[in-house]
């Protein structure tokens, strides 16, 4: 694994490229608005409302818009003179009439925090009082923001009633997805399948498929599954029951099912489920492992830029279990020593592994580098992508099979694209020059070493044909220039001509 960190500029201003992690305000809206009996009023200029409520979730969550979100619409007069209380009050009064069965929550934004619009006091005096959520949008990122928003929901709408509830022995909550969580529907579907396979009953999927009024029922479950390492653990701890994280890959998923079996007292059922899965869901992995496809794994290089769970999960499964080679992996929220986007961009401009799992940012960096032999596989937001089908999980046994299936099919695509073709268009691409007979041009050892080091930067599967093409080009160049022996300088000149 190669790590690098972009040095901060001399003035201590930290620079960002293509921000991949949004703010506490987005986290609050995307968490609260999952609950259909909530209506959020955001104390926002029109842009903050539109981006979080329509423009982005159109393409992350594939929904027309979030329909339980209303802006206060601060304008210049609110920012410079009036403050936003009047605009918020008007929105509260109208929404309250329009949606009498929704619980209002007023949420601050970066701009409202910038002008210190704290409405907690007067909102608390309304009848009924309206809770105010200070989203810490100028400090908190989306992960910490979601974690705190979930805890806030529990403390304000669950704990008082929930603490009197006795847990049901085999009931399991799934704590995690909100709007804006990559691939959540498929992962939730798979994790629910695993929980039920291990002998559990599904309690709440919170907040993704719950109502605010369900919140006290979080206490009914005896075990909690936390979908992501990035957020949700805070709520699991507050609930005070045992919790496990949703698993990636074969080994971790097997451990997950066994652990659930122990916690629920359903060990036998869990073991039987694992045995059954080996012969059904997981059978393709065993078949691909034994087949010729498995031979590609040791030479397959991959890189990951994704949420913490996905980044670490993919490295554990593809790297540790299947033996592929992680070139770099960097999770979000970023940890000290991990590559930020400036470093990722710099890396991908120089060298492109065969597979890159990431967001639209990595896709852009690969495009900037003209990388044609690298397969980009979406694995994170930001980026417009529909991930609503239930059959595309990354987590669990189904996820393990799905990821490998995706990768193998892209290998096939590479093979297809490298095979010779006679196009029906007479003006089609000119075929590569025919190689001069072997041995007509001599190579020095240093020249061979130079070619090898150049090839190192080309993804492995493409290397064979690239090696052939480059040798042909360099020798043709040498012959044209009446050079009897290929030296590193000749390689250099020929490569420069080839890339020009």
């Amino acid at each position, binding site marked *: 694994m190669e790590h690098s960190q972009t040095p901060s500029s001399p003035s201590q201003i930290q*620079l960002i490229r*293509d921000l991949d992690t949004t*703010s506490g305000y987005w986290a609050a809206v995307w968490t609260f608005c999952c609950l259909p009996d909530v209506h959020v009023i955001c104390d926002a200029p029109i842009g903050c409302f539109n*981006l979080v409520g*329509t423009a982005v979730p159109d393409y992350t969550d594939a929904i027309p818009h979030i329909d339980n979100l209303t802006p206060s619409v601060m304008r210049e007069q609110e920012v410079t003179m009036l403050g936003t209380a009047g605009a918020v009050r008007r929105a509260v009064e109208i929404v309250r009439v329009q949606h009498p069965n929704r619980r209002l929550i007023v949420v601050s934004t970066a701009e409202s925090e*910038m002008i210190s619009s704290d409405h907690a006091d007067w909102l608390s005096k309304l009848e009924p009082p309206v809770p105010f959520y200070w989203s810490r949008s100028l400090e908190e990122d989306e992960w910490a923001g979601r974690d705190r928003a979930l805890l806030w929901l529990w403390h304000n709408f669950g704990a008082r009633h929930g603490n009197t509830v006795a847990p049901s022995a085999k009931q399991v909550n799934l704590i995690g997805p909100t709007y804006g969580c990559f691939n959540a529907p498929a992962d939730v579907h798979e994790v629910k399948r695993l929980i039920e396979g291990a002998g559990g009953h599904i309690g709440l999927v919170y907040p993704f498929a719950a109502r605010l*009024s369900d919140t006290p029922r979080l206490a009914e479950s005896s075990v909690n599954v936390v979908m992501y390492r990035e957020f949700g653990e805070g709520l699991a701890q507050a609930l005070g029951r045992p919790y496990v994280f949703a698993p990636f890959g074969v080994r971790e998923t097997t451990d997950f099912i066994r652990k659930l079996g122990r916690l629920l007292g359903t060990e036998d059922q869990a073991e039987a489920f694992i045995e059954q899965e080996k012969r059904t869901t997981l059978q393709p992995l065993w078949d691909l492992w034994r087949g010729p496809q498995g031979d590609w794994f040791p030479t397959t290089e991959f890189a990951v830029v994704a949420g913490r769970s996905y980044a670490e999960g993919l490295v554990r499964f593809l790297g540790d279990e299947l033996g592929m080679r992680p070139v770099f992996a960097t999770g979000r929220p970023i940890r000290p020593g991990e590559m930020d986007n400036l470093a990722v961009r710099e890396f991908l401009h120089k060298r492109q592994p065969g597979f890159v799992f990431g967001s639209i940012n990595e896709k852009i960096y690969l495009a900037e580098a003209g990388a044609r032999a690298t397969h980009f596989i979406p694995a994170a937001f*930001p980026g417009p992508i529909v991930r609503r089908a239930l059959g595309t999980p990354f987590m669990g046994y189904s996820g393990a099979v799905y990821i490998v299936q995706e990768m193998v099919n892209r290998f096939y695509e590479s093979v297809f694209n490298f095979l010779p073709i006679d196009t029906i268009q007479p003006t089609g691409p000119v075929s590569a020059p025919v190689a001069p007979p072997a041995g007509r041009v001599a190579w020095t050892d240093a020249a061979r070493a130079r070619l090898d080091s150049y090839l190192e930067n080309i993804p492995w599967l493409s290397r064979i044909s690239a090696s052939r093409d480059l040798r042909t080009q360099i020798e043709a160049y040498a012959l044209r220039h009446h050079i009897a022996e290929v030296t590193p300088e000749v390689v250099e000149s020929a490569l420069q001509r080839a890339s020009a």
Partner: protein
Amino acid sequence: MNDLQCLLRKATRRTENSVEVDVVEIEIVEVETEEVMSEATPSTETRTAAPHDVSVSPDQALTPQTMCPAFGSLRVLTRIDGVQTAMVTDTGCLYGLTFVTHFYAARKSIAAPALGTQELMAGNVAEAARAACEEAARTPGTKLVAALSLCVAETAGLTEEMLPAQINGAEVVLVRVPAYAIHSHPEAKDVAISALLKKFTAPARPTDAQGVETPLTYDQPDTQPEDLSRKVIMLGEVFPADPITVDAALKKMGASLAANLPSRNLDDYKIAGKVGAIAALHPFYVQSVATLRAAGVPIVSGAPIGAEGSYGWLKGIGNALKLDPERVEAVAAEERDKCRALIAANPLSGRIHVCGYEGNELGYARLLVEAGAQVPYVSTSIDKSLYTAADEAWLKAHGTIEVVYRKKLEQDIAALDRYQPDLVLGTTPLSAAAKERGIPGLYYTNMLSVRPLFLSAGLAGTIGLIRDALSRAPRYQWMREFFTGETTAVITPQAINTMD
């Protein structure tokens, strides 16, 4: 709650604003469920007092319809070759705008400084902006760096003087687009274009010996290079085929098109002050028009849309360029007659709402009315101005009942129920609301991007698209019935294509 229940519940939520009796029944079930589940929802109001009967007056409408205004600027700027952007804003804003820019505007990496409470409190905004501009300018081939100052930076105070005029030979332009002050997406396009024009267009008005500007007159001696004096620049985003058909018509009149702004070529902005005429196609380019007018360039407003519009526009261009009136009349009359023949052969019939946020809805509505459609309701995100007056008067004289500026979603939805249109061209939330009622709905922005609009060629394409959309009503009705259980009472008479 299982996935199906969740889906059903979400479908129920979406129908909340409609008036059907069976919806109310479904909602009553929902209320009972809530009461059984917990007391977390404190409302004591019953659903019979629900807001369905509350008519939506403008003072009750809360939700302005526009893409984040700042995106208008980003879209224009990031698409120009050699322009790099530095965004000065908070992380939530940066995330959303980067997302939509990468999706809709340009596959360009975007630089920004990290701006949190710490940096804002320390007064580091200018320093941060400079650092981001320097980072942006590092991209090879950078000709211009656009520093976008958004809500938080504007509130903190960022001015042109705080930025260098150039970095490594690249011009630096400050584009100020706080969403609280620029109220719509199209107006921010104007801000970006006028910022570039101001940079590149020196006022052409000569001064007398005392340094006093001589009065502007279009009859002053033409000192411009001959090749530009008979050329037109169109100002306004258009479908890529439109400039080609316009250029062909202009050539027949003895003129031609020099460029279309916004353009991918920075040089097009540099010649804008020197051409024979500027055609301001859309009514919101107020600042850009003022800048060019100050540079002494004649302005032609309106667009070559429909029979009357095309005729009048071509005549206007002929006048501004002082072309041969007979030749101009012949070309203009030919286009008008072609449009009329197309309409006679394929007239539209049906009721259509035009409710986008692009700022050019009035012109589009005129075309539909000319082609035979009823357009009782038109709404747009921009404000009423001198430049919207002609189109509004024309529409009102041809049967349009309401033209709404700075519209809100609630107004557009109320109009759906008031006029019962056969087709809605709207924002994504409005189109979704139309589809929930079984009415064909299209995202107006998408409509503009799939067909030409100008002259007879554009008219033919647009009428074809609208006729096709009107014919699809049975599919929308079937989908509505399947997902909501509600039937659409009236089958629209335009339905010429059925599901069998």
